[in-house]
Structure formats: structure tokens, C-alpha cells
């Protein structure tokens, strides 16, 4: 079977089959997983990171780690949510590095001026205004909110990922919600 044929028939395979092949070292199977889930992973990483900067790197890094760790994945059919967890972790790591690995309590300063996006003439939708509002949130608040509301992580999972008590997560989330509600109202 030619390579191109193989790739197109693999494109119809389930995640479980592809993850199994990739775990065994099949690069073509892994490539189909990248094509299938890469866009979602990039969209999620952009929300965690607060901009498109570093997104390509973070997702690339996540896939390379996934390739190495796939043989340890017990439920191959859950590869999509497993990939989302890896990209979440990589994106949070990137933010840690941006803050010189300072404790998360110190990430809660207002977003620096340079990170503020240029205001376009108008926002077209609720989604646009939310994206804009998110970009203005301090990193710690944005990370908690995105993990909870977009990634579907539990309080405990967020707390473990960020290395802070659940009570801190609650506080950050509460502040994020209020800020977002207010910002979205202003853009209406």
C-alpha cells in the first residue's frame, strides 16, 4: 500500500486504533492524530496562554511528549482527553517560566500593558468580547477559569496542576468570573 493511501485509510480509523499504532511506533498513525486533534489543542493552548504567542511551540512540545508516553496510556480510546491534559500541562509550564517560576500567588498581578490586544473597530460576538476580556485577565485567574470552564477540570485537578490549595483556586475563579462578567457587559 502506498504511503498516501495508507494515510487516507488511517484517516478513517478510530482514535483507539491510531493511538495503539502510535504507541507501537507508527509515525503515520500519530500524524493522523495530530491532524485530527491539533487544531483543538492549539485553540485550547491559546486560551490558557492568553494569546497566540508560543502556541505552536507548546502544542508541538505536547505532541512530542505524548509520543514518548503513549505506551503508558491505559485507555487508548481516551487519547483525546489525555492529549488535552498534556497540552494543558505544557501551557501552564510555559506560563510558570514566563513568571520565572515564581509562586502562583505572584502571577495575579494585572496583565502588563504590552499584552493588551489592540482594540479592533468592534467586537462581533459574545465570543469575541470574551476572548478580549480573557486576554486582559491576570495569568492565574485566566488559567483557573479556562481549566474549569473550557477544559472541564475539577477544583482538585486544577489545584494539583497549579500546586495551590483548592481554596486558592476558588478565590481565583471567583475573581475571574466577576471580571469576565463585567468586561462582557461593557462590550455589549
Amino acid at each position, binding site marked *: 500500500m502506498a504511503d498516501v493511501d495508507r494515510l487516507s485509510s488511517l484517516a478513517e480509523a478510530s482514535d483507539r*486504533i491510531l*493511538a495503539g499504532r502510535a504507541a507501537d511506533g*507508527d509515525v503515520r498513525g500519530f500524524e493522523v492524530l495530530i491532524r485530527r486533534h491539533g487544531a483543538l489543542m492549539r*485553540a485550547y493552548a491559546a486560551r490558557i496562554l492568553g494569546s497566540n504567542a508560543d502556541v505552536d511551540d507548546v502544542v*508541538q512540545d505536547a505532541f512530542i511528549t505524548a509520543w514518548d508516553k503513549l505506551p503508558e496510556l491505559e485507555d487508548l480510546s481516551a487519547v483525546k482527553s489525555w492529549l488535552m491534559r498534556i497540552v494543558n500541562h505544557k501551557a501552564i509550564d510555559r506560563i510558570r517560566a514566563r513568571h520565572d517560576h515564581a509562586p502562583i500567588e505572584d502571577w495575579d498581578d494585572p496583565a502588563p500593558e504590552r499584552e493588551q490586544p489592540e482594540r479592533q473597530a468592534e467586537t462581533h460576538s459574545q*465570543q469575541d468580547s470574551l476572548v478580549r476580556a480573557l486576554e486582559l485577565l491576570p495569568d492565574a485567574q485566566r488559567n483557573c477559569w479556562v481549566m474549569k470552564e473550557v477544559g472541564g477540570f475539577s477544583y482538585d485537578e486544577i489545584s494539583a496542576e497549579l500546586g495551590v490549595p483548592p481554596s486558592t483556586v476558588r478565590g481565583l475563579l*471567583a475573581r475571574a468570573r466577576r471580571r469576565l462578567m*463585567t468586561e462582557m457587559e461593557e462590550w455589549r
Partner: protein
Amino acid sequence: MNAANDDPADDIVDVLSDYLDRGVEPPRELIEQSPENHLALAALLRVREAARSLIDVDEGGLSTGDEGWIDSILTNLHREVKAGRAIPLTHPSPRANLTLTEGAVRGLVRAAGDSVDGVLVGRCVLDGDVTVAGSPVVVRVEASVFWGEPIPAAAERLRVAIAGALIQHTELAIEAVDVTITDVHLRRTDDEGQQS
């Protein structure tokens, strides 16, 4: 903006969020208690609704401009991590130490499986101590069959193809080839989005 916690409006957001987190509708009395509560709930729901659409992307929504990005991921993969165990091979010279990697055997199984029409091979496990020559080995393979193919016949063709390839190319003492059909997939039709 002031985010101090002594603002009474803060409490209602927390309370309402807790209800929504648990997937429970906030009590009607609470909402009707004050216009502020009503507004807070409406605003909260608006944010949540927008949140759900934040990562709405089409599956496979990468563009042609992403080919370079995909390539750079693929070229950076550590191929050697999949080598697995070393499987001894006999050689006429006693001083030669010849081995085959487990990864190579899995590749062989995959290639043999893919040569069977209507079948795609998934995970392959070599069960047994393959590092000791002559140890009994059971090969466990997951596979997917095209929709409409009779499954038992496809599984049998796959089993025969794999066993044949292993006997021909390795010295493994194959005790059994177990095939588990885990999925059924649709055959690609010609007019569907082509990837090149």
C-alpha cells in the same frame, strides 16, 4: 475595577456559580429576590455560553499552512523510544550477537495486517519473554474492520497474515495470535475531503 470581597454582589456570583457547577438550577426564590440576582445569573450564563464556544474548532481543522508545523513535530519525535526489548536471533558464528527489536516485530505485524484488505491494525503486544530464545509468545493485536465486512472472516485473514509474517521473518515461538476487533470504521468515499 475593585474586586474586593466585601461587595455583597460578589457573594451572589459565588452562590450561583456553585449551583451551575453542580449542574443544578439555582432556586427560583433566590433569583426573584432582587433584580441584581437576576442580572448576575443572566451575565453568568452569558459567560458560560460563550465559554463553550471558545474552542469550537472543526476536527481536523488544520490548514495547509500547518504542514510545516506538522512536519517539524514528526521529525522531532524520538523514534528510538519505541524499540522495546531485544529479541535474539541465531547466527552461524558463535561470536555474533544478533538481535531484532520488539518495535521492528510490531512494525512487521502492522505491515502484515495492513496488507489484509478491509482491516486496520491497532495496538500489538508480544506477550512472553521474547528476550529468551524459544520462549512461548502470544501475539495480541487490536484491529478495526471496514463497515460491512464479515468480522470473523476478516479477523481470521488477519490472524493468518500475521502468523505467516512472523514465522517467515522471526524465530519467535508463536503460541497464538489473538485478534480483538475493537472498532468498525467506514470506508472512505472518493468525494470526502482529501488530504494530500
